[in-house]
C-alpha cells in the first residue's frame, strides 16, 4: 500500500515528505522532514523504513483486535469462543487499560458495547499510534508527525534542530473541507498529541451517557495520544460535565463544538 515518489527535490535543506498506508479502516500517514544532501540526515529511504515499521505494527494490532476480522482474537472473544482469562496478555492489558479509563471517566468511556460485547476499538488506535511513536524514537527518528485517521502524534519539529512546533488544523464539524482553528504540537508546546471525536463517528463506539449528544465534535490535545483520544471520546459521550472533569483533572486543551455550531474551549484553544 505504500506509495513512493521521485526524489527530485532538495537542495541541502529539509522538506516534508509523507508516506501513507491503509489499516484499521482508515489511512495512516507518516510525515518527516527529509534531507537529500546532508549526510546522516533522514532521507526517503529512512522514511520508507520508518513507515514500514509503523505499518507492520498497525497490522499486527489490527489482526488481534479487529472486530471486522472474523478470525481475530477480539472476534473470538466477542462470540464467546474465548474467555478473557484465556486471552493473550496484550488483549488483557488493553482490556485493563480500557477499564481504568472507564473508572477515570466515570463510565463516559467504556470498552463494552450496550449489548455487552467487548469492543476495544476506542483505545486500540491510540495505543497503536503510541507504540508506533515509541518505535520511531527507537529507530532514532526524532522529527515526525504520525496521523491515523485524524488522530495525531508528533515528535520534534518540522524543521529539525529548531523548537518550531508542528501545526495541526482542526476540521470544522460543519464543513470537512475547512479548518476551524489550529493547534501547535511538539516543539515548545507541552502537548504532542491531538485527537478528535465526533458523534457521527464511524463504528459508533461512542455510547452516550445521557440521552442526546451535547457536542458533535470534541478535540483534545494532551501529552500522549491515548489520553487525548479517550478523553475526546468521553467528552462526546459525557457532555459538559465530562469536559469540566477532563479540563480539571488532566493537562489537556479541549475544543468542543455543539450541534448549533457554538463552541466551548479551554484556554489552550482560546486566541491569545
Amino acid at each position, binding site marked *: 500500500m505504500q506509495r513512493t*515518489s521521485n526524489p527530485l527535490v532538495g537542495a541541502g535543506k529539509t*522538506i*516534508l*515528505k*509523507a508516506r501513507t498506508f491503509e489499516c484499521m*479502516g*482508515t489511512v495512516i*500517514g507518516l*510525515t518527516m522532514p527529509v534531507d537529500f544532501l546532508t549526510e546522516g540526515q533522514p532521507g526517503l529511504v529512512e522514511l520508507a523504513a520508518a513507515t514500514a515499521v509503523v505499518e507492520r505494527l498497525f497490522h499486527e494490532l489490527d489482526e488481534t483486535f479487529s472486530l471486522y476480522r472474523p478470525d481475530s482474537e477480539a472476534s473470538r472473544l466477542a462470540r464467546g469462543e474465548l474467555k478473557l482469562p484465556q486471552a493473550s496478555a496484550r488483549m488483557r492489558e488493553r482490556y485493563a487499560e480500557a477499564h481504568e479509563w472507564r*473508572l*477515570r471517566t466515570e463510565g463516559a468511556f467504556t470498552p463494552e458495547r450496550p449489548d455487552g460485547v467487548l469492543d476495544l476499538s476506542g483505545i486500540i*488506535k491510540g495505543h497503536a499510534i503510541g507504540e508506533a511513536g515509541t518505535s520511531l524514537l527507537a529507530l532514532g527518528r526524532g522529527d515526525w*508527525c504520525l*496521523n491515523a*485517521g*485524524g488522530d*495525531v502524534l*508528533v515528535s520534534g519539529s*518540522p524543521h529539525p534542530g529548531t523548537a518550531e512546533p*508542528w*501545526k*495541526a*488544523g*482542526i*476540521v470544522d*464539524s460543519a464543513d*470537512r*473541507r*475547512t*479548518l*476551524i*482553528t*489550529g*493547534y501547535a504540537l511538539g516543539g515548545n508546546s507541552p502537548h504532542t498529541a491531538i485527537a*478528535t471525536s*465526533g458523534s457521527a*463517528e*464511524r*463504528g459508533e463506539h461512542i455510547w452516550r451517557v445521557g440521552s442526546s449528544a451535547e457536542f458533535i*465534535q470534541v*478535540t483534545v490535545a494532551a*501529552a500522549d495520544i491515548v489520553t487525548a483520544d479517550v478523553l475526546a471520546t468521553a467528552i462526546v459521550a459525557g457532555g459538559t460535565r465530562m*469536559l*469540566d*472533569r477532563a*479540563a*480539571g*483533572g*488532566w*493537562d*489537556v486543551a479541549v*475544543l468542543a463544538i455543539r450541534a448549533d455550531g457554538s*463552541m*466551548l*474551549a*479551554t*484556554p*489552550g484553544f*482560546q*486566541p491569545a
Partner: protein
Amino acid sequence: MKLRGTVAAALASAGILLAGWQTGTQVNGISTVASSTTATGTTGATGSGSSGAGSSGAGSSGAAGSSGPTGSSSTSGSSGSSGTSGSSSSSGSGSSSGSGTYKGNTVQTRFGPVQVQITVANGKITDVTALQLTNTDGKSIQISNRAAPLLRSKVLAAQSANVQTVSGATITSNAYLTSLQAAIDAANL
C-alpha cells in the same frame, strides 16, 4: 475487639483500594495524592490535595482501627455515637454484636474527595459505599483550565496551507480521499 479488628481491616482494604485506584489514575501529576485510611487508623492523615476539602473523618479517634467512626466507639464497642451531626460521625448502633456503619477518612482524588462507608451487621461487613465521589460545586476543577465559550469570529481560522497535519473525527479510507489530510499528504509525496 473482634469488631474493631474487622472494621480496621475493612477500612484498611478500602483505603488500599482507594490508594490503588489513586495510583492507577495518576496522570500528569495533578496534585491529588492522599494517604489512605490505614490499618492502625489513628488519624490517617488526610489528602494533601490542593482543593482543601477537609477530612471529615479526621481527628484522633483513638485506638486501633477506628479511623472511621470518630465517635467514642474505641473502647467498649457498645456505645457508638449516634451519628447525627454531619458527615464525620459514625452512626453505629454499636451493639456488642457489632452492627453499624463506619466511615473512613476522606481521601482526595483527582475527581474530588472520596469517603468510604461500610455497614457492619453482626460482625460482618454487609455493604461498602462510596459516600462522596465528586464534589458538585466544581472545586476540583482547575480554575485556570476551565472551558469557556469561544466565538467563531474570535478564532483566526487556520488555513490548510499553514498546517502540516489535520485532526478530525476518524474517517474511513474512502473519506480520506477527499479530505484535507489527503491533500496535504499529496503535497508532501
